[in-house]
């Protein structure tokens, strides 16, 4: 019963903020992982362990792609853009 009712403006804002927080937390975690990868790359290069350099760079690249995808496409549903414009959460749930 409650699930069918459209969320109020305040609920929608709360959901919106939660998604934004999730995005930020994920971005920070990915940045920390990339820092670790950079440290490992420096370590491997100085120790002349060349076989691990490429996997490390690829891992860093994957992290960057994920970061880009989060920034570019991971948006709260209330701001999701479609061919017909932005969808509002309240409209979508009706």
């Amino acid at each position, binding site marked *: 019963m409650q699930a069918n009712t459209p969320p109020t403006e305040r609920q929608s804002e709360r959901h919106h903020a939660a998604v934004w927080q999730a995005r930020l937390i994920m971005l920070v975690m990915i940045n920390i992982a990339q820092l670790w990868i950079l440290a490992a790359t420096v370590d491997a290069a100085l120790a002349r362990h060349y076989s691990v350099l490429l996997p490390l760079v690829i891992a860093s690249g994957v992290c960057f792609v994920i970061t880009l995808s989060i*920034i570019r496409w991971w948006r709260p549903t209330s701001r999701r853009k479609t061919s017909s414009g932005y969808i509002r959460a309240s409209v979508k749930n009706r």
Partner: protein
Amino acid sequence: MKNLNETIKRVLSDENDVRAATAPYQAEFPYDRDEEAQVTRREFCNFLGLTSAALFLGAGGFAAKAALEAGNFESFSPAQIAGAEILAPNSALNFNYPTERDSAILIRTADGTYHAYGQKCTHLACPVYYSRDHQRLECPCHEGAFDAATGNVLYGPPPRSLDVIEVEARDGQVWAIGRKTSGGEHAS
């Protein structure tokens, strides 16, 4: 009453004047001081994105530089090590070989034989030094140690032995004739 409060507030604190940016010198460089310290979520997201890009480029650049340096085959020409002939037993001498940028260390062990190694520790490239008391090469950064006669790792974090510089006695002089990278891997 309200005006009085505002006046008192303004007199007690010059912060309002600063934020108002009414002084002529402030007008020359106008920006919204109230919003100066505020970062929006979008700006923070973009900052994290740029940081991610920078870290990726850093890792890629560092790996590329290391691979490039590994691929360059160096040819070494013999070079005389000045002052090596008067080096006392159980002591060491620093020199550069094969280029001026490559620091190396020559050791004359207690039995009189010469050994030379690249001075960069194989862990994180700190310069190693010869410890007379322990008769071994030690790295001061992370407490690694190498055998003075072979350059092999005795203990600590270094993953491989030191680069060996081949030395030869010619007419009473000591010459460096080659440098061998021990252990590690070569870029394909």
